[in-house]
């Protein structure tokens, strides 16, 4: 996907809406709206956890924060609640091999979150995964 100058607009930095705007102007505001809705409907700080975790798994460059350090060792870290660990487990599996997400992992998620919350978090994972992979290859 090339912009109006005929060059790829994602090559020199991480993806953001203005890059998309250069390449596909008509979709940019709708993508922003969708991502904003996904973020605003996820519970607590799970949106940030998901976004940082996906970026780490994909090897995307992001600003280092204290939270990103904890996420590297999320499984054994006392920083996260059991609910947060449940969504981080699914996030990891989703990005690495979506076919291997199990019913047991999903049941664990149900213990801590409502159906609307689960839907919002899964949607956010899918968007971070999709746009993160786009950032990797484009």
């Amino acid at each position, binding site marked *: 996907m090339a912009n109006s100058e005929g060059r790829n607009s994602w090559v020199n930095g991480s993806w953001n809406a203005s890059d998309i705007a250069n390449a596909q102007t008509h979709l940019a505001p*709708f*993508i922003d709206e969708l991502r904003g809705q996904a973020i605003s*409907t996820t519970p607590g700080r799970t949106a940030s956890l998901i976004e940082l975790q996906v970026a780490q798994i994909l090897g995307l460059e992001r600003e280092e924060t204290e939270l990103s350090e904890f996420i590297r060792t999320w499984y054994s870290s006392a920083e996260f609640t059991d609910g947060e660990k449940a969504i981080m487990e699914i996030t990891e599996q989703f990005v690495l091999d979506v*076919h291997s997400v199990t019913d047991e992992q999903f049941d664990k998620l149900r213990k801590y979150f409502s159906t609307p919350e689960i*839907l919002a978090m899964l949607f956010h994972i899918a968007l971070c995964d999709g746009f993160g992979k786009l950032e990797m290859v484009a």
Partner: protein
Amino acid sequence: MSSTPRLDPVDPTARSVFGSILGHQPQLATAFSTLYAEFWQRGELDHITKETTRLRNARITDCGY
């Protein structure tokens, strides 16, 4: 993985997006539907290319659509 949703739809008898699992988050469903409609109705790519990539994606992810 199965193409059977793990989350229950809002209305099992409805055929619309808003009766599906997306109906649990109506604003998210609206934003998704609007983007999806824009993607299909406008843009640089022709419909054959869009549909071919959609089908290929559905096969790989074991999506029922």
